[in-house]
């Protein structure tokens, strides 16, 4: 079973990575993550917003209200400089972790 710390770390990395491409509102963010991970990561509303608010409190992302083409008010999130700074080491940590796991499974199957 994957621990909550790992899951949260994955979620943070997913959100920061997708926002690195440009500002997005919540629904679009969830859809983009699902598409780009081919459904492996799926955010429900209940999972997404507490995470976004937490990351906003930490100063990694910033939300601002915008009016969409359809005239709807939407809150768009973008990466802050602090979020950009956080993304690099986070990405490295996960690469190292997956690299280590890959090596381990190869050894185990050898």
């Amino acid at each position, binding site marked *: 079973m994957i621990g909550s710390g790992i*899951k949260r770390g994955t979620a943070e990395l997913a959100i920061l990575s997708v926002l690195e491409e440009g500002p997005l509102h919540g629904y679009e963010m969830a859809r983009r993550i699902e598409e780009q991970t081919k459904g492996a990561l799926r955010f429900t509303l209940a999972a997404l917003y507490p995470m976004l608010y937490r990351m906003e409190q930490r100063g990694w992302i910033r939300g601002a209200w915008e009016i969409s083409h359809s005239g709807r008010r939407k809150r768009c999130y973008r990466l802050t400089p602090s979020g950009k700074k956080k993304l690099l080491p986070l990405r490295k940590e996960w690469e190292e972790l997956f690299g280590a796991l890959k090596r381990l499974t190869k050894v185990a199957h050898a």
Partner: protein
Amino acid sequence: MPDWQELVRQRLSNLALEPAEKDEVQVELATHLEESYEVFRKEGLPEKEALHRSFAQVGDWRDLQRRILIAKRSGHPMQKRVHQLWIPGFLTMALSIVFLVTLQKLGFNPRMVSWRDSDIFFYAPWLVSLPFLGALGAYISSRAGGSRGIVLLASIFPALALTLTFLLMFPIDMIIEPIIGRQVDFSIVAASLLRDGIDWILVPGAALLVGGLLVHLLFGRRVSSQDTAIG
């Protein structure tokens, strides 16, 4: 098409945030649900099924409400502690003191119980009020997203504050009494502490805790900030 704003407002009505911030959260979540619904409809789902699937994203609205609250306050640990412990704790303490003083002013006399050559005093109406006050403290703490431990601490806060006072009084007494030239009889001090500990800490603390536990059982699904984030 359902009124998403209203539906979300009803479900997140107890979200303990500032009105403007609460409104923003409600609008944002309603917009998300509305978009989900529209996409499901475009995919050809019937209205009822689209509605069901959109709402299925939130299994437990109360749980979501608490998680949002915790997340919104996560950036300010001090503020979080103030809302979860200090405010409910001090409120419980203030109300219990005010109620006790009022009872005394109204002429209610304490009930005296003899125990091991000493008399222990109990204010029955005051003790009866304490589970309610403990419950109030626990409820406020729980609303602010307090964990089980913090909720229970908030409920017994007056007893804890008195315990601390007693613990400080004992060594201070031991230092001051010899200085002012009085003989200290440790057995008398210990007996007095034990007696006061029972009628001012132990019994009221238990009464407060009853209220706190009740609130915890009724409202307290502990939601940790460590909760799983990926649905």
